[in-house]
């Protein structure tokens, strides 16, 4: 039968054992992860992978067996991702993120951060002036659900009470409040980031809404002579939270900007580069919002002294600013 055996069949018979071995190794790598495999196994994968790739090239040239070529394509693809898609350990990646990646990403967005801050502040000032002149404007800036009774209809006494209300028992109410506030803010931040794609405009609108609500809120309390107390109540978590929201706006702006003005790269490449950088900022923003949620849900209810609230607010802001913008050496790791 020798003359009847095809070259492609002989080719397959000679290499099939290696393919199956690679297949088994890849299946293991995909299920338990590369980190849990023995050293010998790990050393074998790249060798067998390159063998499979060259088999694929040869098979494409000499074999007309669809199943064989499809199998080798699948095998090579899986091998490629195990060999080249290797990632560092989670711990190293986390350390890297906090030590360099996150602050570097925030620093690189300083222009967008300033724009985002300016938009928010402008909206806050406008809302502040409008509400001071005519309290009815309050309803234009504040969602009644979020205001929860803190509106121009309330008496000064009840407004004061909202700033210093103590829940009956500590365990009750607080954890739900913290969770709710955190997810609510995280949602806004993610919208600001994701909508940046639509040429910055929706992100700017979100920043205006957020700043406007802030301005209207403070104006209401200032008009009752509670400005100092309300600012302390707000800023104990607000410095962290508003900073995070401003950063998320900056992240959204950077994507929209890259889409509008991609520079020398193609629009898709520019968007991808900006998107990754912005996502790095956003991962940190979620962490900041979590901190803010804790401060808001627990710290604010437990700490009733205005000056302590201001101290916490100021030190949190100083902490974030120093962490992000303190000059540091860059480029020690690629």
């Amino acid at each position, binding site marked *: 039968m020798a003359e*009847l055996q095809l070259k492609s069949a002989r080719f397959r018979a000679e290499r099939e054992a290696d393919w199956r071995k690679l297949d088994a190794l890849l299946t293991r790598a995909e299920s338990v992860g590369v980190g849990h495999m023995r050293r010998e196994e790990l050393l074998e994968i790249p060798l067998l992978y390159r063998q499979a790739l060259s088999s694929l090239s040869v098979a494409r040239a000499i074999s007309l067996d669809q199943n064989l070529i499809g199998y080798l394509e699948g095998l090579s693809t899986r091998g490629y991702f195990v060999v080249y898609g290797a990632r560092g350990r989670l711990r190293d990646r986390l350390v890297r993120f906090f030590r360099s990646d996150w602050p570097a990403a925030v620093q690189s967005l300083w222009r967008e951060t300033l724009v985002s801050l300016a938009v928010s502040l402008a909206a806050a000032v406008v809302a502040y002036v409008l509400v001071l002149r005519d309290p009815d404007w309050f309803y234009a800036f504040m969602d009644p659900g979020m205001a929860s009774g803190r509106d121009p209809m309330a008496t000064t006494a009840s407004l004061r009470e909202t700033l210093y209300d103590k829940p009956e028992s500590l365990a009750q109410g607080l954890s739900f409040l913290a969770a709710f506030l955190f997810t609510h803010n995280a949602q806004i931040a993610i919208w600001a980031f994701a909508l940046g794609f639509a040429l910055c405009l929706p992100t700017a609108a979100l920043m205006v809404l957020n700043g406007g609500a802030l301005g209207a809120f403070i104006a209401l309390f200032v008009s009752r002579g509670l400005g100092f107390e309300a600012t302390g109540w707000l800023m104990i978590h607000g410095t962290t939270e508003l900073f995070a929201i401003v950063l998320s706006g900056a992240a959204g702006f950077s994507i929209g900007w890259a889409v509008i003005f991609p520079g020398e790269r193609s629009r898709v490449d520019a968007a991808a580069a900006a998107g990754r950088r912005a996502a790095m900022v956003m991962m940190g923003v979620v962490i900041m919002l979590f901190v803010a949620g804790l401060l808001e849900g627990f710290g604010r209810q437990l700490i009733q002294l205005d000056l302590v609230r201001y101290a916490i607010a100021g030190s949190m802001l100083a902490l974030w600013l120093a962490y992000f913008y303190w000059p540091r050496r860059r480029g020690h790791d690629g």
Partner: protein
Amino acid sequence: MTAEVAPEPRAEPVRREFVTPEGVDLGLKVATYAERVTALGIDLAILAGAMIVLTLLVIAAAAVARSAAPMEMLGVVWVIGSSLGRYIYFLAFELGPRAATPGKRIMGLRVIAADGGRLTADAVFARNAMREVEVFLPILFALSQGQGIDGVMIALGLIWSGVFALFPLFNRDRRRLGDLAAGALVVKVPRLKLQVDLADVERTGAQGVVFAPAQLDVYGIRELHVLEDVLRGGDRKAIAEVAARIRAKIGWDGAADMADRTFLNAYYAALRGRLENRLLFGQRRRDKFDVS
């Protein structure tokens, strides 16, 4: 090339050039829109199921501990679980060794970096955060109600956000906005099993059947592949039909009592041998209309 070329047997997914550092094009298949929507549906169903289980667990735990505040615990679980749980689910699975959520795994998909590099955490975060806009914004608009101006605004919003949801249909690689922002791509990872070599006539029991060169020159590579599909499919009716057609076409005058399957196996092996031989001499005969 004539106009009467047989139509594609099935809609082939888009193949994308993907050259490894070794210089081999893996020719990845891009996941179709339907596959991706299905995968997302499976993932959301899993998440909904997890929420139900979690809710029952909390209720059970509250009943056992006689806690006074089961509703608050439920509230925390719901608020955190419904939004944060979603992110953690997608992030954790797509950062794992298979770079795919269970829904994608079931559909045979995975996420890759479009440039072939490593899929980084920021890329995965970007594509999942973007999903809020692409999937949940249209849903939000569709669910909200309003009359007059509000209704018009909602309709406009629905159209505007619908553009995002349908965005993948308008580019070759079926990338959604999140994929663009992340520089990522969703592809199929075929898990094809290596089956027996059909040209192995000793195993298929089809040795000793000889065809004349003229009988083999009737068909080209595409027909060979169709024949392979039929043989591997194993559908008796199809095998009988194809065998009858080939016998008629090549004017088969050999043993008339040969089983259809054996005949096809023998013909497949002979045809493949012939075509592969011509391949070695640089002649790739695409199909039966190719007379080069």
